[in-house]
């Protein structure tokens, strides 16, 4: 029986070392000048330890990672927050647009597995913050993206869901100007911790479930359709109008499963 006690202690010791190691792993932080949904002069941030990567934005145009730490991350937008897990390649995001007729409780977090996007990497290059960056383009969920990434840092960091490039994305934008980020600083091997406020959005009880991403989109679309119906009902009688895609002003405007051919 005593040997089982030793094994238990040994396992606990290994777990403790591992826990401390994970927590003390140095972080890489990128700060971007950011435009999102026609909000200009805001800031977005990535903090990554190559195990997890958190992406979020702050509406304070003067925000830096240092000022965010000092202000306890109060200006971080609580809705557009993403947690990418490098091991299982899942990205987690918040559920916040839910039709009023849905009864609580409901999952607060949704997730999907991120595939590598189909990037077209060009030979065009430029210097960004002293790193050689290459131009790459892709189409993703109804938008055409153009990014500049560097291979110089031997790590993989990407904002939001722009996965699949062998390096760090330093600039990104979609052709319609809905989203744009330009890296202003990179802090390598930082001793900063992951922000508690951001971590709290992704913490959950063991009993809580994670919503599949498709379900999140279903709920969002229900709300968006309701909004559209109200807007049409409010138009003066007799006016002529066209109904756009209800997701026209969403970052993700269409989805790959919508164009999948139906199986016989």
């Amino acid at each position: 029986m005593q040997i089982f006690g030793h094994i238990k202690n040994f396992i606990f010791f290994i777990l403790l070392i591992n826990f401390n190691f994970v927590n003390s792993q140095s972080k890489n932080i990128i700060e971007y000048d950011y435009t999102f949904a026609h909000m200009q002069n805001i800031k977005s941030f990535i903090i990554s330890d190559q195990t997890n990567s958190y992406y979020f934005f702050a509406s304070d145009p003067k925000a830096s990672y240092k000022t965010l730490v000092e202000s306890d991350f109060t200006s971080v937008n609580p809705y557009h927050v993403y947690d990418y897990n490098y091991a299982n390649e899942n990205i987690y995001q918040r559920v916040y647009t839910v039709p009023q007729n849905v009864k609580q409780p409901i999952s607060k977090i949704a997730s999907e597995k991120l595939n590598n996007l189909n990037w077209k990497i060009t030979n065009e290059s430029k210097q960004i913050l002293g790193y050689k960056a290459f131009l790459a383009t892709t189409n993703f969920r109804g938008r055409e993206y153009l990014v500049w990434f560097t291979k110089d840092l031997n790590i993989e960091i990407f904002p939001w869901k722009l996965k699949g490039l062998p390096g760090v994305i330093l600039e990104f934008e979609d052709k319609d100007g809905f989203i744009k980020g330009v890296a202003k600083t990179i802090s390598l091997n930082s001793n900063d911790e992951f922000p508690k406020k951001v971590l709290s959005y992704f913490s959950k009880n063991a009993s809580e479930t994670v919503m599949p991403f498709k379900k999140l989109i279903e709920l969002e679309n229900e709300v968006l359709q309701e909004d559209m119906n109200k807007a049409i009902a409010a138009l003066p009688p007799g006016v002529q109008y066209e109904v756009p895609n209800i997701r026209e002003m969403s970052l993700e405007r269409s989805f790959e499963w919508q164009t999948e051919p139906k199986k016989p």
Partner: protein
Amino acid sequence: MKKIFFAISFLGLNCLAYAIPSVENTNTSKILKFSTCYTQTITQYENSAGEYVRSVAGPRVSVECASGQLAGSTKTSYTHQLDPYADLWPY
């Protein structure tokens, strides 16, 4: 008699041809089509703390183009509104 009948028929058909303003009609419909412009309202929803939640595009409404406005173009306006959904789900 035959000659008079053919002469009247020929003149009558010519007059009818001139009476059908087909070319003018095409031009008019084109002008009407291209003088249509659109307005669209984008609503930026925020929570009670003024934090951005989401954007929604409204219907694209046909209007007569303003002077100098490019035909077929859309004039976009933005409004800010409290999101009735965002605060339902406390974080």
